[in-house]
């Protein structure tokens, strides 16, 4: 039962073939069974989940109107604020933080009558590409427990892959939904910047962060996006526009679709199995009536350094509020106010977070602003112009999501730059504020999933979801053996 997709659960509950309590129970049992191995959760809300499932069943029995995802069990990345429920960002700094308010997405999912199973693990404050920087635990890749699930939304991806929730939400600043979704064989989407409210998402890099779904299939991805998309007056960067149903727009028809394949994403550093799987997917598209050709995004190599400057600078400011005064961790020993700050922050943050705060503080500090932060924002403009040009000619762009399939624990933790390279295919999408969906397009010789990324123009979610929907039908998915 835990392998059901959200749309299947929705339909069965609607037809009274399934109750919310039954499906919630099935997931809690599943968590009981595999969580020891996968460790995707930071917090499991056993009792609360059963209570809300019962409440939903009651509503259904009483003939009351229920939300679009009534009874569907979900989990949220632990940087999405949930009222009175621990929201830790997988950091010692927020080990005990219970927000007095709900994030807009948490509220929307509550209004859709989903059942919240719990909060899932992540890289500390979403900084990382393997979920190894979590203060609490190391989440495993369900396909191979000796491999990382990717990151930063590693818990979100592993949770879905291990059938510990029907779907999850993650956040994506430079690939944090797409890279783990790919490494764990899920479908994940980073929507256009501004389409999903960031209110209640603990900020990493405000101008790049975006919330999105990780799901079992493309239809779920569209269906969930339907629920979380929309203007929010609480978020100034939220786009005020109307959205038609993305789920209903899925036709699977890609005839005439013009696909660009940026050569810069298929070069050195991209492993052979990944390249092969991506090319095979492109051929499948062609077979379905789409066309593709190699093209160029010449500035792509500048995306990663620009990304690290912008994201670290914004993070250094966003994370300054964690000082041991208002919430979360406070150091036990300190001499005075300045020492309280320094001691709390040094003990409360992990090494990677501190490294990024240092880089960002440096990039913004007197004398360096123009050389690093402003320069990166100018390069950002140029990269966006690159994309604009590409989308004059192509409907969507297809690339790998990650250079390799899932890597082993500790493999990249010694060299931060090497870890950053894991985002090489994904960061430019955040730089451009573009939407991109990833889905499994094959498996390597060890059975590890390979992710394909489909990038759209701003607000082009319908096109990329539909392309993904078409391709998904040509792929035989393999479930992890747990």
């Amino acid at each position: 039962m835990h392998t059901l997709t959200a749309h299947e659960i929705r339909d069965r509950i609607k037809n009274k073939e399934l109750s919310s309590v039954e499906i919630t129970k099935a997931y809690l049992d599943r968590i009981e069974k595999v969580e020891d191995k996968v460790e995707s959760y930071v917090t499991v809300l056993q009792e609360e989940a059963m209570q809300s499932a019962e409440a939903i069943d009651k509503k259904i029995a009483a003939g009351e109107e229920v939300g679009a995802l009534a009874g569907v069990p979900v989990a949220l990345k632990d940087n999405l604020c949930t009222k009175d429920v621990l929201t830790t960002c997988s950091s010692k700094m927020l080990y005990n933080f219970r927000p007095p308010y709900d994030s807009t997405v948490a509220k929307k999912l509550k209004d859709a009558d989903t059942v919240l199973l719990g909060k899932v693990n992540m890289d500390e404050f979403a900084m990382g590409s393997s979920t190894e920087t979590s203060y609490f635990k190391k989440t495993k890749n369900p396909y191979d427990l000796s491999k990382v699930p990717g990151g930063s939304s590693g818990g979100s991806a592993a949770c879905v892959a291990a059938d510990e929730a029907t779907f999850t939400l993650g956040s994506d600043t430079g690939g944090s939904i797409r890279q783990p979704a790919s490494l764990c064989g899920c479908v994940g989407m980073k929507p256009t910047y501004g389409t999903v409210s960031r209110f209640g998402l603990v900020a990493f890099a405000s101008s790049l962060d975006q919330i999105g779904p990780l799901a079992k299939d493309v239809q779920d991805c569209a269906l969930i996006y339907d629920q979380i998309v929309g203007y929010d007056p609480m978020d100034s960067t939220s786009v005020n526009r109307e959205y038609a149903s993305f789920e209903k727009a899925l036709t699977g028809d890609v005839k005439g679709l013009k696909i660009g394949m940026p050569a810069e994403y298929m070069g050195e550093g991209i492993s052979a199995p990944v390249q092969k799987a991506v090319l095979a997917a492109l051929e499948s598209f062609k077979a379905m009536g789409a066309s593709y050709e190699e093209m160029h995004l010449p500035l792509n190599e500048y995306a990663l350094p620009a990304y690290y400057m912008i994201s670290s600078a914004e993070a250094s400011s966003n994370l300054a509020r964690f000082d041991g005064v208002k919430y979360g961790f406070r150091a036990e020993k300190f001499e005075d106010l300045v020492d309280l700050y320094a001691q709390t922050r040094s003990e409360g943050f992990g090494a990677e977070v501190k490294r990024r705060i240092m880089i960002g503080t440096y990039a913004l500090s007197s004398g360096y602003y123009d050389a690093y932060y402003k320069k990166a924002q100018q390069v950002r403009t140029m990269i966006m112009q690159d994309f604009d040009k590409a989308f004059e000619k192509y409907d969507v762009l297809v690339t790998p999501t990650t250079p390799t399939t899932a890597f082993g624990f500790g493999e990249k933790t010694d060299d931060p730059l090497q870890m950053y390279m894991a985002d090489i295919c994904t960061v430019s999408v955040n730089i451009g504020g573009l939407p991109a969906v990833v889905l499994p397009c094959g498996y390597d010789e060890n059975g590890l999933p390979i992710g394909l990324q489909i990038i759209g123009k701003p607000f082009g979610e319908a096109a990329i979801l539909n392309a993904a929907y078409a391709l998904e039908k040509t792929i035989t998915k393999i479930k992890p053996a747990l």
Partner: protein
Amino acid sequence: MNYETVIGLEVHAELKTNTKIYCGCINEFGGEPNTHTCPICSGMPGTLPVLNKRVVDFAIKAGLAMNCSITQYSKQDRKNYFYPDLPKAYQISQFDLPLCQNGYVDIVVNGETKRIGITRIHIEEDAGKLVHDDYANCSIADYNRCGVPLIEIVSEPDLRSPEEAHVFLETLKTILEYTEVSDCKMQEGSLRCDVNLSLRPEGQKEFGTRCEMKNINSFRAAVRSMEYEQKRQTEVLSNGGIINQETRRWDDVKGESIVMRTKEDAQDYRYFPEPDLLPMIISDEWIEEIRSTIPELPEQRKSRYISEFGLPEYDAFLLTSSKKTADYFDETVSLGASPKAVSNWMMGDIAKFINDKELEAGDIPFAPAQLKALIDLIEKGTISNSAAKKVLAEMFAQPEEPEKIVERLGLSQVSDEGALMAMVQEVLAQNPQSIVDYKAGKDRALGFLMGQIMRVSKGKANPQVINQMLKEALDKA
């Protein structure tokens, strides 16, 4: 050597909006600690700011009133620093594209008009408050004031003396009151200023090294701190020393300032564009819409009082230096009272009462209609000028119609001709010599007889009426 003082001011004014700048919490002074807060103004993780449109309206309004050009493409920036009254550890402010730029304000010092440049006006959020006094080992952070909207007005270094700076501050305050963007309540800290002061040898073009003074909580403190700093710098320079660029903290109780930080440990605020807020594009239509809401400003009003009512410049200046006072004046005049009489009363006895009772300018406890009634009583001859002063005192003490007060205190003048004629006859009968003197052309006799009649009437006789009667009676005698 003689030195010239150069002063520039940074004035912070809290805007009187209903809500805070980035959240819907009430913008209200005071309250129990942390009762006017929410996750947004308390800097909870995940929260986002949304700009209150009225803050932009008010800043533009102030800018237009100070002859600024309005920046058509403006943005907000983060100013990063750690302090317990700043829960996000950054203040949202404006760095390189303030809403208003390049304006000026005309001030009048010793009868001379001087133009003072306004470099910029930008919007920003206020910080919270730390309470120290009641606790032995800790301070308590109260975030009620966090997110209260401010404008910071930065002047050019055009001021040349503490006195000029004082007039400038008073003028700014008046403009902010007239435009109704700020309450300017000094005692609630809704108007605060930082002072930059330097000296240069007379005749030198280049500015000297300046010092900044903070923690100035009243105009009086501003003036004192400037006088202190002027003296301090003069002494240093006269003794061959040099001025270090530094920030000093004014202690109003001790009447001195001490070094807070030197140039070396200047803060690095790491300004960058606030990614959670969008740029502002201010259209011409928007600017014109705001311009149309700007009332007559003090300068214009003063000119009107001079040209329309023939008031002396000094009187017109004083009347218009508080919007409340000027509004009161206008209303009384509009009821038909003589502008000169109203002005005399307001500038004279009323101003004295306000001063004595330590009221705010224009806080007159009775309505303009009552002042008009008082003036009418004088003009109709019902009461004398000196009786009117007594009536006014009563009007300040409690709400009562002037006519009732006159009645209650028995202050009305005797204007009844029969009664007055009897007094005139009585006095003439008692002073035949004075009649002779008057006839002989001794004017003093008339004054003497007037005095006698006033004495007999216990001061209630209407002097104009008896003057007339007395002359007629003497001519007949």
